């Protein structure tokens, strides 16, 4: 066994500290091994016990999520991604994962490999990836400051990176969300979601089963890129982080396309006993996790690993995060099948070891034994921490008398041009969202809708999180993230079937950050329980802090839903002049944490809106019942910017079309007795505007009255491109053509600067 004796000053405990392991953790290692670890073993422990791989700071919180349900085929935490039944023998595997730190130091490759990693997680499950979403956060991109220029560069780099990978591999990016806020200066968030489709019997497992079975390394050769990236991602970002650029991997979507096809072909051949992608912590993580899941051991020889350069050390080989690699365990006697398929796809492969019965992860370099650690201790016995949580102080409710009433005419333009609300077409037109010919509702409506042709199923998907709400009240903000995502699905005609979440927070050693994490997990759990949506997995990204401060807590929630019939697919866009517009829900009055307060007053304060799940659910149920009865032509939820922004957006047609249709709307809100700015721009929850054919109005009103839910007949869609809103005695009107320009050109204009 190699030892550290070559450098006398470098004792194992110092080395452990340099690897970010605490002294308690080092003591635990000593007692687990019954001896001092060598350098390779310290490296292995440091990545496996990093937050990124072990969730040591969050796992106790994550146990609060509801994870079961009659449709759950593979539960959260069991495998690389959860799997949900969608009927007729078909299932979906989906998951969201962050690549925040790599994207902060190298936006293009960081984002690209984030996409590559999540795609691998999905096809490892035996599923063919069919679409992607992404949830992004950047610092403000307006203005001439150095910081704004940096943010624009990060933003354009990330978008190009996502496009580069997804477009090339041929998985459409069909939705997501993007917000801009100073809290993300220096620490952007890049969360990528992928969904794949498979038959029940195709579910693949990441377990090393069958003593003596051969273990193959397949895919790209190992290089030095991404060395110890998982450990890098579990630290705060500092000025020196740029020196960690080698910790960022470089993506090759072409290789991944070959790997995807080869693995699916191999899985279809029936020879696979277990399969696991090499993502974070690469070869180390994939070997000990498969052994741990299989209740077995593994023995591999690093000499047999395909390498980019022969002089790679054992340490480097174990910790490299080179992309586009997989570990495959096949049944004995099937070695030739691997050879045939990987030669067809012209991919490197190597028979690197065998499954053993001693429960150990043994790594050899030729004759030398380099690592000898019980596999379970690495994968499942990382220390778990219950960090200290600060006591939360509720923000002072907003005192409306301190908010000057701004002219709604100007405010609506301001809001529509705010990058967080403005059209994101500049982004998604850089993504191929039409490949695979299944995108029925492309990006730009409440939820994207994808048709899985071979299964004859319509899936809807969305990701949401208003981090302003979360920064003011993490618990309520997280609840709203679930409610809004579910509302977006309802507006597209779908019923939610599963959730995946990406918890982006600051340093968990800071009591405020840990409180935020806990409160958000509890909020998401409450929401998912209320809607009966199982959480099928996700990702935790902590230490999201730059030199400036930690990010606003951003617990992103992605929901997947099913739409029963083609006729029930609904979009947010008004369809025809003369259609009647309804508001389902109250007019609302909550202004705390609103984008109006932010964009027009520069204030991020107050108590964010409250959500009542029982009421929210009743609203969704009512909308779906109207959709199923064929009474809804468009539906759009009221979120950032409130009712006025929702109405304007519904007047704008689908901007993916060559000829964009614009409508107007004639709205009368009647006598409300509240300030006009409050009526138009408040962000109270559980509100949906929908339109219906004039001849069906009576039927709609009857149904709504019977439901007992609040609703208002707002007015009608007009051919004339004027949005006019009557409020008490006043009438406000805007040209929707000019509003559309403010909204549509905001981001391209900023990005040309």
């Amino acid at each position, binding site marked *: 066994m190699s030892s550290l004796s070559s450098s006398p000053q470098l004792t194992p405990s110092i080395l452990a500290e340099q690897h970010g392991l605490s002294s308690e953790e080092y003591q635990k290692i000593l007692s687990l091994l019954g001896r001092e670890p060598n350098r390779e073993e310290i490296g292995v422990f440091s990545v496996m016990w990093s937050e990124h791989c072990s969730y040591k700071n969050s796992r106790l919180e994550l146990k609060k999520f509801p994870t079961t349900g009659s449709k759950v085929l593979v539960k959260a935490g069991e495998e690389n991604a959860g799997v949900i039944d969608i009927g007729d023998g078909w299932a979906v595997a989906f998951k969201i994962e962050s690549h925040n730190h790599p994207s902060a130091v190298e936006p293009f490759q960081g984002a690209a490999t984030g996409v590559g990693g999540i795609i691998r997680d999905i096809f490892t499950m035996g599923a063919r990836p069919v679409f992607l979403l992404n949830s992004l956060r950047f610092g403000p991109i307006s203005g001439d400051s150095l910081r704004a220029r940096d943010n624009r560069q990060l933003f354009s780099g990330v978008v*190009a990176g996502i496009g580069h990978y997804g477009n090339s591999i041929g998985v459409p990016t069909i939705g997501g969300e993007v917000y801009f806020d100073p809290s993300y200066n220096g620490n952007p968030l890049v969360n990528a979601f992928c969904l794949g489709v498979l038959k029940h019997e195709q579910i693949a497992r990441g377990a090393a089963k069958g003593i003596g079975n051969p273990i193959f390394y397949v895919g790209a050769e190992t290089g030095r890129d991404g060395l110890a990236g998982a450990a890098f991602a579990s630290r705060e970002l500092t000025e020196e982080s740029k020196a960690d650029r080698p910790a960022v991997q470089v993506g090759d*979507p072409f290789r991944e*396309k*070959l790997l995807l096809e080869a693995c699916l072909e191999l899985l279809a051949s029936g020879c696979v006993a277990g399969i696991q992608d090499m993502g974070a912590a690469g070869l180390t993580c994939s070997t000990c996790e498969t052994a741990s899941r299989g209740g077995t051991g593994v023995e591999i020889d690093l000499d047999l690993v395909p390498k980019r350069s022969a002089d790679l050390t054992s340490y480097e080989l174990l910790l490299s995060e080179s992309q586009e690699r997989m570990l495959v365990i096949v049944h004995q006697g099937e070695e030739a099948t691997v050879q045939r398929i990987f030669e067809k796809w012209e991919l490197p492969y190597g028979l690197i070891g065998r499954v053993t019965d001693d429960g150990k992860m043994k790594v050899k370099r030729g004759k030398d034994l380099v690592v000898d650690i019980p596999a379970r201790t690495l994968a499942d016995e990382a220390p778990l921490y219950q960090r200290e949580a600060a006591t939360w102080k509720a923000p002072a409710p907003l005192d409306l008398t301190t908010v000057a009433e701004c002219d709604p005419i100007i405010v609506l333009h301001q809001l529509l041009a705010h990058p967080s609300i403005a059209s994101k077409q500049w982004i998604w037109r850089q993504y191929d969202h039409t*490949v695979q010919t299944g995108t029925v509702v492309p990006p730009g409506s409440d939820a994207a809708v994808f048709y899985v*042709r071979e299964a004859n199923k319509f899936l809807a998907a969305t990701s949401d999180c208003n981090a302003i709400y979360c920064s003011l009240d993490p618990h309520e903000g997280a609840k709203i993230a679930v409610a809004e995502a579910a509302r977006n699905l309802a507006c597209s005609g779908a019923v939610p079937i599963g959730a995946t979440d990406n918890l982006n927070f600051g340093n968990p050693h800071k009591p405020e950050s840990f409180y935020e994490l806990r409160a958000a997990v509890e909020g998401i759990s409450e929401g998912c329980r209320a809607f009966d949506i199982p959480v099928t997995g996700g990702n935790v990204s902590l230490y999201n802090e730059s030199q400036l401060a930690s990010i606003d807590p951003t617990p992103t929630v992605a929901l997947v839903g099913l739409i029963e019939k083609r006729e029930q697919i609904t979009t947010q866009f008004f369809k025809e002049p003369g259609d009647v517009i309804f508001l389902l829900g109250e007019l609302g009055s909550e202004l705390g944490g609103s984008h109006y307060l932010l964009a027009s007053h520069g204030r991020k304060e107050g108590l964010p809106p409250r959500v009542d799940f029982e009421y929210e659910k009743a609203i969704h149920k009512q909308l779906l019942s109207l959709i199923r009865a064929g009474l809804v032509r468009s539906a759009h939820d009221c979120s950032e910017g409130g009712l006025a922004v929702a109405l304007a957006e519904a007047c704008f047609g689908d901007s*993916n079309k060559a000829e964009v249709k614009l409508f107007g709307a004639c709205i009368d809100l009647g006598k409300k007795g509240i300030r006009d700015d409050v009526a138009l721009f408040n962000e109270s929850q559980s509100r949906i505007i929908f339109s219906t054919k004039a001849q069906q109005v009576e039927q709609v009103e009857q149904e709504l009255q019977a439901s007992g839910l609040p609703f208002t007949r707002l007015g009608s869609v007009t051919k004339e491109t004027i949005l006019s809103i009557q409020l008490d005695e006043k009438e406000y009107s805007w040209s929707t053509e000019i509003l559309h320009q403010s909204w549509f050109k905001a981001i391209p204009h900023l990005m040309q600067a």
Partner: protein
Amino acid sequence: MRCAVLQFPGSNGDIDALEALRSFENVTAELVWHQEKSLDSFEFILLPGGFSYGDYLRCGAIARFSPIMQAVQKAAASGTLILGICNGFQILCEAGLLPGTLIRNRNLLFRCEERLVRVETSDSPFTKKISSGSVLHLPIAHGEGCYFAKEETLQELHDKDQVLLRYATSKGEITKDANPNGSCENIAGICNQKRNVFGLMPHPERACDELLGSTDGRMIFESILDHVHHGAGTSL
């Protein structure tokens, strides 16, 4: 009609093309791997979109050397109908089966959106069922779709009526705004002088189902089917 959809390792529009073709009656379509050497049994050959061999060099620059491209050359010479979509168009240009080349979009960004293209002539097997001047709604999705050719080549394309599609407005006007990628003269698709090889950047296979927003792509495949089944005589 017996159709071959070529499958390079990095093709990603192969299945889309296969499914689009199979949505027509009297069509059999199959994938043909890039290592194959013969296409003799096919009446129509489609080179799909994607990133054939990764395309980190010029798009299609490596694909032209693949074994199957020898068979495509032979089929082209014998008059078989050949359609190259997006990356397929790039490969056909690199292989010298079509003149000119496709370079980075003028604004350097990938573009994915629906676009309008004007059909310049019905006088081709690929457009025979579409009246000249019609405007089609077709999606585009490319980063290197700016068609570029020398002055003399462009002149020759005019003289021989080889431009089949141009980016246009809804009224059929050829304007700068209608051009998504900076292509010379708004060119979206061209054929060879023998008129049996056609390359275009837009994706007709993604516009064959009402569910996806446009069925205008069907007209191109209907033209091809008509030509294969009835020969050249039934042009509009």
